[in-house]
């Protein structure tokens, strides 16, 4: 097995530094919003984790297209890796949103269009992981996953635009908000710097984790091949 590439080590360090800097900006640089208080700062990582979620689901759909075109196992590994990471980050985004909603909306959860579509996205990709584990044949599993990732991706832009098309209480920070939205605010310069830096930091962190997860997938694949060969030798 190849040793860890230097570029990956550099990416590890860069993402750690950027995430810590983003946290520093959130806690020590971004101002406290007057109406919501400190909880508004949850927004920076809430949006960034949701962004990583959507980035990964998009990458999985793209990997699905490449798998269906080329049939290479590597694209299947990329797809499942992206979905796995995005599931984790999207869950974090939903939980963060819920924590923000408690003092602002006076409830942990409401069946608002954005919250509902986000929950559906999480369930769709959770089902992707479960269904994958139910298919033994690697080729069938990869083909099924590629098609599923393509259809599942429809839910991603729907979730993104739900707060812009439907009547919702979820705030829209960038762009015009629905009149019924509660908890919106205007970003000043320091808020924008923190926000965009957090997005960049999490994007790099995602690339770093994806690379690690792909390496794990390739190692697992090599082990599986060796296991089959060993079993055949035994017969």
């Amino acid at each position: 097995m190849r040793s860890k590439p230097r570029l990956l080590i550099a990416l590890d360090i860069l993402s750690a530094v950027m995430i810590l800097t983003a946290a520093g900006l959130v806690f020590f640089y971004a101002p406290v919003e007057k109406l919501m208080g400190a909880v508004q700062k949850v927004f920076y990582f809430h949006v960034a984790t949701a962004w990583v979620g959507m980035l990964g689901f998009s990458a999985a759909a793209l990997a699905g297209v490449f798998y269906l075109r080329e049939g290479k196992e590597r694209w299947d590994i990329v797809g499942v890796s992206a979905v796995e990471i995005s599931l984790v980050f999207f869950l974090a985004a939903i939980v963060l949103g819920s924590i923000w909603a408690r003092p602002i909306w006076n409830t942990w959860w409401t069946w608002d269009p954005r919250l509902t579509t986000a929950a559906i996205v999480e369930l769709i990709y959770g089902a992707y992981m479960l269904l994958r584990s139910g298919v033994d044949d690697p080729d069938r599993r990869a083909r099924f996953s590629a098609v599923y990732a393509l259809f599942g991706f429809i839910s991603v832009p729907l979730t993104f635009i739900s707060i812009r098309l439907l009547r919702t209480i979820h705030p829209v920070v960038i762009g015009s908000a629905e009149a019924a939205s509660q908890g919106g605010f205007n970003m000043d310069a320091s808020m924008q710097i923190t926000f965009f830096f957090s997005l960049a930091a999490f994007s790099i962190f995602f690339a770093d984790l994806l690379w690690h997860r792909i390496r794990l997938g390739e190692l697992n694949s090599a082990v599986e091949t060796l296991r089959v060969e060993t079993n055949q030798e035994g017969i």
Partner: protein
Amino acid sequence: MFSTLFAPDTGEYLIAGYIVVTLVVGLYITSLVIRWKNALQAFRLYTQEFDGE
């Protein structure tokens, strides 16, 4: 009335939020490390078997 308004104390929610993110991401990274070590161990075991033949 408005002059008496001040930012509400919602710091506990902020701390809770960032603890949750740290825990969720930390657990995922731990799972990656454990799975990598297990897979590497299995890989070495199989390659040793092949070398021994």
